[in-house]
Every structure is written in C-alpha cells, then in structure tokens.
C-alpha cells in the first residue's frame, strides 16, 4: 500500500479507540421477530408441545422397559397394562406400542428434517441464482423446474425406493431433492424483488461479485419466506412419509414411522383402538403445532409490521 504511512498514525488511533469502544449490540431483525413470536401465545404453546414431542421421541425409549422391536410373547394384542410395562398396549406381534410410537415419531421427525433441509438448501441456491442472474439463465433454470413439476412425483419416489429402499434417511434425502421445486419458485420471486433494492446496487457499486451479492445480500433477506415455507414443508413431508408408508414404500420393518403405525392401526381400530389412537394423537398434535408455529413465524417476520 503506497503512501499510507502518514495515515497509519491516524488509523492506529482509531484502532485503539476500537479496543476501548463500548458499542451496544443493536436489535437485529431476527431478534425483533423472535420478540414478536414470543408474544404469540399459540405459537409459544406449540413450540413447547413440539419440544415435548422431540424429547418424547428421542429420550423416551431409554426410559422404557421394552425396546421397539422386542417381542413380549406373554402379551400379544393386549390393551395398556402398567404392571407389564406396556403403557400403551402391544401390537399383534407383542411389541410395546409406546416404544413403537416413540421410534416412529423419531423416524418421522428425522426424515422430515432431512428432507426439508435438503429442499431448502437446493431451493434457495437454485432460486436465488435464477432470480439474480435473470434473463436466459432464469428462463432455462425455471423451465427445468416446470418440467420437473410435470413429471409424476410418485414415479420418482418408486425409482428412489428401488435405489434407497433399505435406507429410509437416504430415501428422504431423495424426496428432499424433489420437494425443492416450490421453494425455488418462491425464492426466485423474492430474489427478483430484492435485487432491485438499492442496497444490492450499492453492493455492485462497491465492487462485489455476483456470488458475494447472492450470499451476503440476497440470501439473508430471504429468511422470512424461506423459514415460513420450510415450517410448512415439514408437515408436508411427514404426510408424504405417512402416505408412502401406507402404500408400503416407506420405512421397513421392524423400524416404523407414524404413518406406518397408523396404517397398521386403522384396520383394527375397532378391536385394538390403542394401536390407532396413540400414533394418531402424536401425528395430529405435531401437524397442528407446526402449522401454528408457521403462522406465528409469518406474523413475526412480516416486514410490514416492522
């Protein structure tokens, strides 16, 4: 650097000032949003319920006397029995229902999370790139999305099952790879409007390269719609998983998921009601709470309310 020696003295003074500077942290938009979310009673309650379900699914199994795949030959098709440790009864094979519900919830949550994360990741990058570069790039990328939309979803799933059939998590990585289409469209639309904002122009005037602009200036400002849509994707994937398991394409025995449990429970709902009620209660409360959280996030992140 030429000729900065004189300036260095000045800058050093500022650098020293920097060390002693007590600059309070500002309120970021995210913090503001969280504050608003906390005021939303339905969302807070839902967060607690979801939190409880997570703990239930992941910690619960360690507290139970029975494992999810262990068969109790003395108790087949038995209603809840506290003395034997079958708090939610047993299924036709004598396996403990509560342990199976916990394992099923675990599985449903994992696949939902994995698939959602994959779809958010691909959707955000794809949509932001298409929207930012625009023109021909955008046209080609979005036509590809249209084609993917047009192809039958279930066909892809069956192909994926053939490939990943043994591994449910990998299967849902695959499903995530199909679920990103809507996310990409939403992100592209948002990007089109964000890139017209003056701060993006300011970044260009500051010499920033396209990738820097996308990562530093566009993606962080997508938080609102992305988070909201992601919270809606989670229940969607849980339902997809239930649907696939119902068709016999999802999780393999002895592992289970909420969808599988319900599909086994529903034919025998009249004779063995505990086989349906338990998993159904968990699934319904999970979906309901996630929807409330999504609503709460939408209100909290709404920029109009700023």
């Amino acid at each position, binding site marked *: 650097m030429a000729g900065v020696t004189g300036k260095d003295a000045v800058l050093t003074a500022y650098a020293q000032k*920097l060390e002693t*500077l007590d*600059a309070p942290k500002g309120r970021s938009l*995210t913090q503001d949003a969280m504050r608003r979310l906390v005021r939303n009673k339905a969302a807070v309650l839902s967060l607690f319920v979801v939190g409880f379900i997570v703990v239930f699914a992941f910690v619960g199994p360690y507290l139970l006397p029975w494992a999810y795949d262990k068969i109790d030959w003395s108790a087949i098709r038995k209603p809840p029995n506290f003395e034997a440790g079958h708090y939610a009864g047993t299924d036709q094979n004598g396996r403990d229902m509560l342990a199976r519900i916990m394992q099923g919830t675990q599985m449903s949550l994992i696949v939902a999370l994995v698939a959602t994360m994959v779809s958010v990741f691909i959707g955000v990058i794809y949509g932001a790139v298409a929207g930012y570069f625009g023109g021909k790039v955008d046209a080609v990328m979005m036509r590809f999305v249209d084609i993917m939309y047009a192809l039958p979803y279930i066909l892809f799933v069956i192909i994926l099952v053939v490939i990943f059939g043994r591994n449910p998590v990998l299967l849902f990585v695959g499903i995530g790879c199909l679920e990103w289409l809507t996310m990409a469209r939403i992100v592209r639309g948002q990007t089109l409007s964000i890139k017209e904002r003056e*701060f993006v*122009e*300011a*970044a260009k005037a500051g010499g*920033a390269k396209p990738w820097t602009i996308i990562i530093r200036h566009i993606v962080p400002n997508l938080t609102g719609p992305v988070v909201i849509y992601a919270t809606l994707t989670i229940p969607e994937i849980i339902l997809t998983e239930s649907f696939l398991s119902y068709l016999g394409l999802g999780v393999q025995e002895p592992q289970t998921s909420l969808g599988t449990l319900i599909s086994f429970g529903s034919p025998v709902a009249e004779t063995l009601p505990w086989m349906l009620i338990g998993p159904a209660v968990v699934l319904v409360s999970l979906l309901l709470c996630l929807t409330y959280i999504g609503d709460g996030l939408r209100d909290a992140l709404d920029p109009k309310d700023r």
Partner: protein
Amino acid sequence: MEQGAIKPAQPVDLLEIKDLKKTFSISGGLFSRRLTLTALEDINFTIRSGETLGIVGESGCGKSTLGRCILQLLPPDEGQVLWLGQDLTRLPAEEMRQRRQDLQIIFQDPLASLNPRMTVGDIIADPLRTLRPELNKDERRARVLKTMEAVGLLPEMINRYPHEFSGGQAQRIGIARALITEPKLIVCDEPVSALDVSIQAQILNLLAELKDEFGLTLIFISHNLSVVRHVSDRILVLYLGRIVELATGDEIYEDPKHPYTRALLTAVPIPDPKLARLRNIDALKGEIPSPINPPSGCTFRTRCRLAQSYCAEKRPPLETIEGGRLVACHRWRELDAPLEAVLGV
C-alpha cells in the same frame, strides 16, 4: 486530516462522456412487438476535478439512468465514459471492479439502500472487503470508525442495525459507505429528496464539508432546483433523455437560455409569500411526453411557447454560445429578458 490523492491546483478533466446512448426494451403486451424506450441520447459533457455538476430534470428524463451509466451499473448501448482518458465501458470486469474505488454512489432512499440484516459497521466496511482484500478485520473497523466520525455518526452506533436509525442518520451511513474507499467522484442520486426539511439542510452541508475535506468531485442528481442551485458549480438540464442546456449555476439561474430551463425555474415554489404572489408563473402546458414515442424534431416543442413549425422538422443541435455555455434550441435568442422579475432576485 490527510487529503485524498487528488487536489491539484489545476483542475483536470476527470470524466468525459462521449455520445452516450442508452435504450431499454420493454414488452408491449402479449401480441404486440417489443417497444424501445430511448432513455438517453447524444450525451456529451466533461466533469473537471473538484467541481459539482448538478443534473436536473423531471421524472423520466433519464437523470438517474445517466448516473448509473457513468458508474457502469447499467451498461450504455453506445458511446464512451472516459475516466482520466480510460474508457470504462470497455474495461474488463476485474479492472472495472478496481476502478470502483474511485467512483461511488449515494442513493435516494436511505433505508432501502442499506441491507437490513447487516450492522452499520459491516455495511460501511462492505466495499473494503472486495476492493481492499488485504485489510484485516481490525484495519477495516478502524477505517469504518474514522469514516463514521467524518459523517457525524457516533462510534457507539457501529453494531446497530439500519432500522434503528432515522432517515437522516441512515443517509449518513450511506455516505460513509461511499466515502470509505476514498473515492474521487461520487454520484449523488437525489440524496436528500426523501428527508425532512431540517435534515435535508444538514445533509447538504455535510456533503459540502466532505467535498472540501476530501477533495471530492460530485455529480448531484435532483429534481429539486433549489437544492441543485445550492450545491452545484455547473448544471446540466435534461429533457427526455437529451441535454437541453449546460452552463454554470449562476448563468442557468439568472439567465436561462432554453425555454424549458426557464419554465422549470419559474415553476419552483419560492418560500417567500410576497414574491410568490407577485410571481408570474410561466406554467408549462401539459406533461412530459412518452419517451417511447417522443415528438419529432425538438422534443420540447409540444410544450414550448416559442415553438415554430420548423421545430418539428429539425432537431436543434447542442450549440456552444457566448461564454462557452451550451444550449439546444433553435430560438434561444428569442427568449425574453433575464429572469429577475420572475424569480425576484
């Protein structure tokens, strides 16, 4: 305080615009062909180091587009933008990026021009990250503090977010971001239009101080003629994407040669009730025509009270008249006596 590199006794030609043209293509609907909107045409002028050039005109006259073409934020269709003799329009991307240290911009809407998810310190330091990658975080922060002080922001504000600031303070942040690379030229695109009156005056004074302190050259784009008069050495008047007049501030405001400039000046409201009542407003009839289908010949003729039939046939060239000023009108000699009576100087 240390000065920027340029503060020579003899002003040099910093920037030269030659035959600049910019068009936009707009879709004319589902079944009609695409239309071409000529935003700028035949733009020629020079900016000397250390001066402030005001660019005025009504909305849609192309003044903001001109600012962005100069900075290469929009690529011009034709013509050259010569920065110290080097044509920016042909510069490879990487070299242009380096040039951006010298050319910066301040925007109209102070809050919209700041990324809402970054802290003030990060926003101001942003150009340094790309343009001066050799600096480490502390060196950047030190420069940020120095610049914040120069624009009148308290150092405690460094970690706050844009939405915690009022419009005037946000504009100071925008100015700090433009100053941090120690530029030679700053394009100010309506920098005070979105601000309250008392804050407007503060920002105008700040720009004037910074200009002296750092030896800046400014291009000041505004629709507010009172503000432009206040800050500019020379003024360029645009109408429908063409230069209609270019002269020093005093010449323009005391003796406008183009009927459009004159009409603009008489339309400016004067904060003085007696003068305002006395004033004979030379109100322009009608509104600015569409730039998609501009009038033939002189584009101003549809609203001009001096217009003759030949104005529709031949486009008036931008001619150099007495005192080296430029005007594009067939009939500038016919314009009435100076403006004093109207403006109440």
